[in-house]
């Protein structure tokens, strides 16, 4: 298929960017979206032009590196996928596709489609852990039974890949789904109880400091999340925060 691409090009964080039009031809429907961009870039390199910079690494939907806003949706029109798992069969011959970086004040653009998501790391530094040293003498793993349901729900929250689609998609650029997932994982497990109150307070405070917006419960994040992280995690975080503040 042949496509027209409208892509955000920005030299570096201090430059002004703009949308630029490109054409790609002979795209196979079996290609992933990133392989389509590879084809575009190969053409650009051959012409001596600078290829479009974009973040990507594992290309199997787990590293959370890819961060494209395609036709007005984070990771494009498919559900439950990252950009690397979005396939060209989702598009039609002759389509025009708009490709932008994830946008949020807390995610400044580094170049083209590459954004800086270190705000997520700093939120985790503020409390995204259980304070246990590596001694090798921790108690036996089976000494605290954890109900299957709690373990599974914690796991569902823990599958977050930190890609930032929730922030990109949210009309408020809120990071509540990301932070809610992390808070939930530990809140659901007995190991996480000791530090629960400080954890949620510190992580939420850091989230606000980073300049993310507030949650108005539009639910867009849950729909666009490639891992299907549930809105329940946001409610759980709200609950944890209230508990911690009282």
């Amino acid at each position: 298929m042949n496509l027209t691409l409208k892509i955000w090009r920005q030299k570096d964080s201090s430059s002004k960017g703009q949308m630029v039009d490109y054409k790609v031809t002979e795209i196979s429907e079996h290609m992933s979206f990133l392989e389509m961009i590879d084809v575009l870039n190969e053409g650009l390199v051959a012409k001596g032009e600078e290829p479009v910079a974009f973040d990507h690494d594992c290309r199997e939907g787990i590293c959370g590196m890819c961060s494209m806003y395609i036709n007005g949706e984070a990771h494009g029109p498919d559900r439950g996928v990252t950009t690397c798992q979005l396939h060209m069969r989702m598009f039609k011959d002759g389509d025009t596709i708009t490709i932008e970086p994830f946008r949020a004040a807390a995610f400044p653009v580094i170049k083209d489609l590459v954004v800086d998501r270190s705000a997520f790391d700093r939120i985790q530094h503020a409390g995204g852990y259980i304070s246990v040293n590596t001694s090798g003498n921790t108690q036996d793993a089976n000494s605290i039974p954890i109900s299957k349901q709690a373990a599974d729900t914690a796991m569902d929250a823990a599958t977050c890949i930190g890609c930032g689609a929730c922030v990109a998609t949210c009309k408020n650029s809120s990071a509540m789904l990301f932070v809610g997932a992390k808070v939930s994982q530990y809140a659901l497990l007995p190991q996480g109880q000791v530090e629960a109150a400080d954890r949620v307070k510190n992580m939420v405070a850091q989230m606000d400091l980073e300049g993310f917006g507030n949650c108005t419960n539009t639910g867009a994040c849950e729909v666009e999340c490639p891992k299907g992280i549930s809105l329940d995690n946001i409610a759980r975080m709200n609950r944890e925060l209230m508990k911690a503040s009282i």
Partner: protein
Amino acid sequence: MALNSKVPKGPIKDKWTDYKNKINLVNPANKRHIDVIVVGTGLAGGSASATLAELGYNVKAFAYQDSPRRAHSIAAQGGINAAKNYQGDGDSTYRLFYDTVKGGDYRSREANVYRLAEVSANIIDQCVAQGVPFARDYGGLLDNRSFGGVLVSRTFYAKGQTGQQLLLGAYSAMNRQIARGKIEMFNRHEMLDVVVVDGKARGIIARNLVTGEIERHSAHAVVIASGGYGNVYFLSTNAMGSNVTAGWKIHKKGAYFANPCYTQIHPTCIPRSGDYQSKLTLMSESLRNDGRIWVPKNLEDVKAIREGSKKPTDLSEDERDYYLERRYPAFGNLVPRDVASRAAKERCDAGYGVNATGEAVYLDFAASFIRYGTEQAKIQGINNPSDAKIKELGQEIVRAKYGNLFQMYEKIVDENPYETPMMIYPAVHYTMGGVWVDYNLMTTIPGCYCIGEANFSDHGANRLGASALMQGLADGYFVLPYTIGDYLADDIRTGKISTETPEFEVAENEVKERINFFVNNKGTHSVDYYHKKLGKIMWDKCGMSRNAAGLKEAIEEISALRKDFWQNVSVPGGANEYNEELAKAGRVADFLELGELFAKDALEREESAGGHFREEYQTPEGEAKRLKEFQFVSAWEYKGEPKDAILHKEPLEYENIEVKERSYK
């Protein structure tokens, strides 16, 4: 220099404990004055960084990704082995040790493997304490599954995302130390050289991938945890950015590179679909617990399926060849990876491949739908369930176990694997070879350590499933933090290492020169052009089976390709900016050297062992033929061109295991 593995004396089960008891320690007040650089933040590097920082060392950690959480350990799906014997099925430290040595085709160092098995149980305890949500059964206790090449259930898992959960565990431990200021994190940085001062590793030269700035970083020890070099094949299941650069740079500065030809080709990957493909996708080996692998018995059926006139589900049981069950009745579909991969290649080479490229076999879950469905019907008290009901109940169970993998398959291939068998084909996945290290995990450069997939130590010629995560975390959490102290104990009076020395100056200039060459060369071919060519040579001639003639050709071709690369490579953009093509150029340059050493190593290893299969050395039944005279580690010393590399042999002795024919029949 003669190789000294520094394996401690004494009975194997006491070696590690006795050694730890007598090792030099650094007192807490002195640790504050010692810096350690860790390159790579996957399971090995991440766990090592966190633990070293907890101990009190000042850690500088480097990752080329934008966060440690994105290292490719995250993509490991199936699980992590540990000799916990929670299932009461006869597992023990010795059995895990035995399985790993046998699985590695008797080409790994006995003492290292035993230590790995010994600390494996601690890993699970540690990870649970960190809040890793491993799968549990209804009683609230940890669940296990079985993996290839073993007869017990010792694999712990977190759905199909075990690597992700373990990495996030290590990352959370790092976060705690970053918050305390004990780890200084350098994201989007790539190490481009190691700096050796007075014979000791004292720092690195790194490039800031955002600004292009070349930075000097000093430390009292350098730890390389940069993963494997599977991307030398261009197409592999590795992440796009995975590279050998850190390992190769230390090799060029004096670290021996061991067994480069030992590569694991993983049997359950999604087949290649076209030339545009940028990478291959693996599906967990755990699928082989419930899936049966087959190709049609008759070539007419193969033809009909390729033409689309027949569907795989049209073939009766009699018309199918379950070749693993046929050839290896004892282990069946759960033979080790090298055996399963080679068997798939054998069938496809014979013309039985089931897709258009002729490189695919079926992985069929129909039987397990029925098996699980019947069981569920009993549990739920459904009398005389219909076939459809049984299938539905069975699919529910399979969905709960592997739902994410089935979904991934459907997204990529656009076929519903619940209705038609999956197609799979082997793909490059893991490299057992790597930088040579002694028992302390130190390379032949004093003060330079290498851990995780980047080193060669524990898996011999073939790695068993769910052992990579185990090794990465064992090295990082429980081995290196002890052994590095033995070396650093002599450094308590050294003080801060200056970066304003001639050694740093020279290393930085070399790095800058190379970068300037790339951006100024203005050649005719892109970096990917060379990478793809190299990958094709590697796959065709150093792939699942190798022969002397092919390997000789490969050496010539890679050497010529490298020459061409250094004349005609084209890198757009500048040096002092975000430049992905420039970063790739440096990585491919190193792959072009490694690839040749790889072929040379494969040529000189005149036997078949594990992932290294030489066509000249096979049994009449087509199994790998191992030779006693090659019972050694090949450690290569850099001498300029790869062809000039000097071979050092570390003999392998087995005192606690009888070296037998490795049979899974």
